[in-house]
Each structure stands twice: as C-alpha cells, then as structure tokens.
C-alpha cells in the first residue's frame, strides 16, 4: 500500500503515566534499546500527576504518639526503636481492603517491592515532604492500619510523574507526544502491534513491535460526577476487549467519598488522613454509626456508602441535599497551608470555600477502576481463567487487573501498583525481546479499517435516520451510569443501565462529528472515546448484574451480603461473536493458611 506509514520498535508502550514510564525505563535498563512511548496527551499531562495523597510503603519513618488514639499526632520513630509496620501488615490491610478479591501472590510482590521503589523515587529526585530528621514523611490513609502513605504535601503524583519522566528522557526513551492509539492487532493470541494516529497531523500509522505494553489508565469518565481527567476514557481497556482480550472485574469501580460537590474534582483523602471530619446537615459526625472504630478513615467504599445513606435519608447538605460537609476548620491554617495547600486552592476555586474557615460541600465521586485487562504479576496479559498469555502483550497500572486491589483499592496503593508492576512488565518485556522474539506479520488492512471508521464519523451522507451528537450520547451515558451503576445498585437499576447502554450503542451508529479536518481533530477523538465508554460500560453493567452479592465497591441493595460460597471469584468478560459480553469466572489466588477470608469490619 502506497500510503501506509509503518514504524517499528522492539517495544511499544502506550501510555506515559507512571505505569508506562516505569515500563519504558526498566525495559531500557534491562538491555532493550529500541523503545517507543506513545501518549495521547503530553506525557507530563498524564493523569498520574493528579494523585494527591501519597504512595504506600512500610518505611517505618513515623508512628502515632503513644496514648493519643487513632486520630492523634504522629512523631518520627527514633533510631533503634521497634518498627510498627511491615510488608506483612501492608499485605493484610490490602487483602482486607480488597474484600478478599485481591490475588494474594501479586499483593505480596507489591508490598515487598514497595519500600525499595519509594526509595528509588527519592533517589531519582522526588521532592518528598520530610520528618524533622530528614526521612520521607508519612501520613495516615483509609484502610491502612498504620501511617504508611509517603507523601509530597498533596501533590505526590505530580512529583512522582515529573521525576520519572525526567529520568526516562535522560535515559533516551523516545516519546511520541499527542499520538492516539486506535487499535490493537492480535491474531492467534499473538500481539503484533497497534494502529495509531498522530493527532497533530491527522496521519495514521501502523506501529509494529515485538512487545506491546498498555498503561492507558482508568475508566472513570463513564460517570457524571468523577474525579478523573478527561483523558481517562478507558481507551486501552476497550481497545483490548475489541481485539479479543477479556476484561476482568469491571463491575468494581471505586467511588471516592470526597469529590467537590457538583463537580467531582477530588479533595484528597489526606484531608481526612490529617484529621478532617465528615458531617451531615445536623453537624453530626455520622461515621460514628457506620465505622465507630475507624470513623472517617474507614475504607472508601464504606465511607461513600455511609455518605450516600445520609443523603438518601434526607440528612444531606447543599442546594439539592446531595452533599456532605468535609470539615477541616479545627486543623488550623498552619497545618492546612503546609500539608494541604493544593486542596485549599481547589476548594477556593471549585467550591468557593476557604477550608481554613468553613466546611466544604462534597459528595461521592467515581474515582478508581479496579477492573481492567487481566494480567499476571509480570504484566503479561492473559486470555482465560487458566492464565494462558497473549504472547507479546503486557499491561500495568489502572487499565490492568492483576488483581492487587480486588473489590476495593486502598488509597495510595495505586501509585504503588502502577510503579511496581510497570517496572516488572518492563523487565519481563526485555527478557522476552532479548530471548529472540521477532516482529510478527500483521494485517495491513487494519489501517484501512481504522481510516474507514474515521471517514464514517465525518460522513453525514451515510446516516440512516436522525443524526446523533457523540457528546450528547456521552452525557446520557454518564447520567445513566451515575443513576443506575453508582454507589448503590440493584437488579432493577442495573437492568435499566443495560438497556440504556444498548440504546445508546445503537444510536451511536448515527453519530457524526462536526469537525471534518485532519489536523488536531479533538472532535474526532471525543467521538472515538465515547465509543470506548459505551464498549466497556456494557461490560460493567452486565458483570454487575450477574454478580448477585455485595463485595467492596460493588454494592447490591438486593444482595447486601458478601457471598463467598458463590462469588469468591473474578469475573472475566469476553466479547462474543454478536458483540455481547460473555461471562466466565476465574479463581482468586488465596493463601488459605495465612489470609483466609474473614468478615470485613472497621
């Protein structure tokens, strides 16, 4: 084909957040020279930069002051004193947080590698906050039984991402900034490359690689109230699914308890970690009734449900009673300015409230995607319950499901997971490439097929019926997902969600864009992203409808109990020949001697 642009790399990485950048760094350090990293936004704009609160690791730098209780002040641990934390404790907290759906082997790897990777960030230049004697500062976070969130004030993700990006550039990694991955080429369970669009020029490329890695981030944009960046449209998840790869545990989506009221923009959990209170319209700290022990620092699924219950029982705040107050006025200006400067600014800008003087109205917000592309602990994508790998395809970070987060992720474990498993994937890919992997033949027709899809989106004459706007379809989807597949779910709501997603998917066939130009066409990208939202939302609602139990973030009011008998298993969804999700199940990796399932109480 004359007009076929072809690029080849030993390793092609899609996504330049923490997962993708670590994968690139470590593949390079393990001997592969020819690595390309593609990102639809400039690498430094990746959503990892939005993470505020911290990255978990049992460093044993601080401890609670004795006798001051679970919300009391912290002090540095003097040299020689007994440690209070350990990878084992971190592991247990993570398993409990996951409501026993986390795979324990993978969790063990993550917590064991945690201290070393945090130290490595520090030695690469991360500007962490510090204890008086110069160690990395730590704070409390929900679901963690000791303070182990290592932080840089409240812009931890920002400093981690900038640091690792700078080091990757230093190491000579090649970045393709503002390139959009459209399609993944898998045939006979072997990955061959991708089709990508250079956004600036509008040119399509076939990129062939011996190994392809996805670190494309989460899928929180399918909800109306969300903390996620506009880029978090679950592209990688949808693209992989369309290429025949299954998706795992998609029904598990975390709703964070403190999004700015009406906007969803995140007010970090560090607000509560530093001592903030949640209050209802009567001024009561209602968590007393739901988690008397951990109070505001119970895990996110529980706190969000408690808030939603208060709201639904008429004790909410705000114009329509859909909010709750996050009260930090007792913390004092000095502490807020030192530890939560970004949050203060956010509340000023987006809620019009100075948290030093007044409580901020907040509400649960779609936040983290526990489900995704199933992988093993080396980042290798698997295609079935037996763990058969898709040769040459790897993934890590929020788009992947290992699963270390199970049914509910603990805060600060995702920056950690993206880093640890991004790095492991890079190493595994390097071993794969250096063991003699070759470029595989590809179907060049794939580029033509993608070009055709783009042309159709621009071609008003091909409409059969009423023309639809992709943006309007996306809005309707988000409203439906918020209403029917949110904090509380049941059969009726999820059935309505299935119907709505189907209706919108049908209507999308007539979706056409207004911008017909080639150059930097964000109208086109928006339409493609909307299609992705529809694709994976269908999997979410079907998986959620099938799972007749409540576990972690998936809460069914018609099945309010966890059901280990029937549901201690991962959902796997394949796209069948009619384009419908076909569900099967995979065992959870549990160490029955050490961490058998228990009741989850806080």
């Amino acid at each position, binding site marked *: 084909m004359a007009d076929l642009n072809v690029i080849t790399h030993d390793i092609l990485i899609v996504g330049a957040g923490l997962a993708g950048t670590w994968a690139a760094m470590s593949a390079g350090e393990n001997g592969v020279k020819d690595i390309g990293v593609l990102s639809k936004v400039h690498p430094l*704009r990746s959503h990892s930069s939005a993470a505020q609160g911290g990255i978990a690791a049992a460093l044993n730098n601080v401890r609670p002051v004795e006798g001051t209780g679970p919300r009391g002040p912290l002090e540095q641990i003097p040299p020689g004193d007994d440690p209070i934390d350990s990878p084992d404790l971190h592991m247990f907290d993570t398993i409990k947080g996951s409501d026993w759906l986390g795979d324990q082997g993978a969790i063990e790897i993550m917590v064991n590698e945690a201290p070393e990777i945090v130290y490595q960030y520090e030695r*690469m230049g991360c*500007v*962490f906050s510090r204890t008086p004697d110069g160690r990395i500062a730590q704070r409390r976070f929900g679901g963690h039984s000791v303070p182990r969130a290592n932080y840089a004030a409240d812009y931890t993700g920002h400093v981690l991402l900038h640091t690792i990006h700078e080091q990757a550039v230093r190491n000579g990694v090649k970045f393709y900034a503002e390139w959009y991955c459209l399609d993944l080429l898998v045939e006979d369970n072997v990955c061959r490359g991708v089709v990508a669009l250079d956004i600036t020029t509008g040119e399509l490329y076939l990129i062939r690689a011996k190994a392809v890695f996805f670190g494309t981030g989460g899928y929180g944009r399918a909800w109306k109230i969300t903390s996620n960046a506009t880029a978090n449209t679950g592209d990688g998840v949808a693209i992989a699914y369309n290429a025949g790869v299954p998706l795992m545990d998609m029904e598990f989506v975390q709703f964070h308890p403190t999004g700015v009221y009406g906007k969803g923009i*995140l007010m970090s959990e560090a607000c509560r970690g530093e001592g903030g209170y949640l209050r209802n319209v009567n001024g009561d700290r209602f968590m007393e009734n739901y988690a008397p022990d951990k109070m505001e620092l119970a895990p996110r699924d529980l706190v969000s449900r408690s808030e939603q219950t208060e709201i639904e029982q008429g004790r909410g705040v705000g114009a329509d009673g859909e909010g709750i107050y996050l009260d930090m006025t007792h913390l004092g200006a000095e502490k807020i300015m030192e530890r939560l400067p970004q949050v203060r600014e956010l509340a000023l*800008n987006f809620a019009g409230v100075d948290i030093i003087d007044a409580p901020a109205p907040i509400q649960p917000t779609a936040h983290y995607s526990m489900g995704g592309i199933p992988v093993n602990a080396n980042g290798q994508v698997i295609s079935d319950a037996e763990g058969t790998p898709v040769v040459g395809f790897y993934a890590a970070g929020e788009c992947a499901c290992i699963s270390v987060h199970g049914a509910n992720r603990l805060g600060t474990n995702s920056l950690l997971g993206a880093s640890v498993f991004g790095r492991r994937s890079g190493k595994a890919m390097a071993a794969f490439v250096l063991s003699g992997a070759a470029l595989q033949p590809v179907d060049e027709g794939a580029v033509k097929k993608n070009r055709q899809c783009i042309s159709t989106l621009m071609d008003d004459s091909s409409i059969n019926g009423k023309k639809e706007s992709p943006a309007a379809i996306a*809005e309707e989807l988000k409203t439906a997902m918020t209403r029917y597949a949110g904090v509380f779910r049941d059969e009726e709501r999820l059935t309505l969600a299935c119907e709505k997603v189907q209706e919108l998917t049908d209507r999308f066939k007539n979706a056409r864009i207004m911008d017909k130009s080639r150059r930097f066409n964000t109208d086109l990208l928006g339409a493609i992203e909307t299609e992705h939202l529809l694709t994976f939302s269908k999997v979410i609602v079907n998986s959620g409808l099938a799972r007749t139990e409540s576990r972690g973030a998936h809460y069914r009011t018609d099945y309010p109990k966890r059901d280990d008998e029937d549901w201690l298993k991962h959902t796997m969804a394949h796209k069948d020949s009619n384009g419908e999700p076909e569900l099967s199940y995979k065992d959870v990796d549990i160490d029955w001697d050490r961490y058998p399932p228990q009741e989850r109480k806080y």
Partner: protein
Amino acid sequence: MTAQEQTIQARVHIQRYNPDVDRKPYLQTFDVPVPQGMTILDALAYIKAEIDGSVTFRRSCRHAICGSCAVNVNGKNMLACNTPLRTVLTKKNEVTIRPLSFQPIIKDLVVDRSAFWEQYLKVKPWLIPPENSGPKEYRVTPEEVKALNRAETCIMCGACYASCQVVAMNRQYIGPHALLKAFLRVLDPRDSAPAERLELVSGTDGVFRCHTIFNCIDACPKNLNPTEAIETLRKLTQRRLAFEKEREERQKTL
C-alpha cells in the same frame, strides 16, 4: 434564587485558525449561558459540545495540575480550568480567548510547544544524584525542602513563558519555566552537578537576560516565583566556587 445565582449570558470571542484552510487567525463569537461556577474550560467544553465541535483546545485534569489548558484571556495568560468565567467578563459580559503567545499555532487555541520543551531540556531537568547512594532515602531536612520554594510543583503550563517580555524579544532565552527548574535542581542538596547547571544558565541566553519585569509571577497559576529563582541563580553564579565547597561538605552527611 438570588441575583448571584442566576445564569447570565456571555459573549465569548474565540480566536480560530486552522493553517490548512485559513489565511490568518480570526475571532468567532459564541453566546454562552453562564451558570454559577462555570469555568472558562466549562465554557469551551459547552461551545464544543453544543455549538461548534471544531473549536479546538487542550485540557485534561480540570483542576490545575496537568498544565494542559493555559490560554490567553483578555490579554492575560491563565489556566482555563481554574478560572471562573464570571471573573474575566467585561462589563458587557464579553471575553476574548486566544492561544498563548510566542508559539506557532497548530489549531485554534492549541500551540506548538516544541521550543518551550527544548528550553526545558536544555537545563537538564532531571536530578543527577550523587555517587554515595545508599539503600534508603537521602536525608533532606524540612528546611531544605522549604528552601526550594515549591518550585517542584510547577506544572509546565507555559503561562509564564508566554507572558515573558524577554521571550517576546528573543526566542533563544531559556525562559522562566526552565530557569525555575534549574533553580530546583541547583538548590536540591542531592544534586551532584550544580556547577554544570550554573554554567548552563549563565550564558547569554540565561539568567542575565531576565529583565525582572515580574510578568511570570503575575501569570503563574500556582503562585510560584520564577523571578526570585532567577535572582537566586544569578547570585549563585557569582559566588559559585564558594558554594560548591559548601555543598561538597553537605553531601558527606546526606
């Protein structure tokens, strides 16, 4: 509903330009209903979704941390995502949005930032750690972190760069964003190449070009202080040798 809460109508003028088809940039006007709390970015998104899908701009995080969305509003550079639209409307409820200055336009509000990033790379933005790297963290005191003056929180949005009168006259100038980065690394007690860095920024396109006009400070949406950072680098360049000795001693106790 109080008057404050009412939706008002705004006339939003946006500079449009697609070099493939337009001879030169022009302004197009859109009527936008402005509910309480609408940001400039919300208004752009409204226009794109409801009126003209071809209006093109960058954005991602929506909360002033990714650095994508800086634009020129009524002649001042700012982030679209954290600026309430009402605060920039004229008495006649109008506002004019253009791309950041001094950079080639790719389309509408999207500029080609190649030069911006090249300058950033020129200062070697990465930390160059010392050799004596132990298994744990380097010890850095809270005071030493404080001395960095939050330079590590720069989001590389380019608002300062596009406001700088020196950049306007000389595109070779390293620019406030990159010099702030250089300051961060030089002041970081862990860095082992401050001399090389000071050398890099002390040339004709470096710190001595800054005319201390303070535009960068006004423009910075994160309230950072590039001017002061540049000032510090200047002083350090002047007393470099003594400074290096001091650091050598300090690194023995990291």
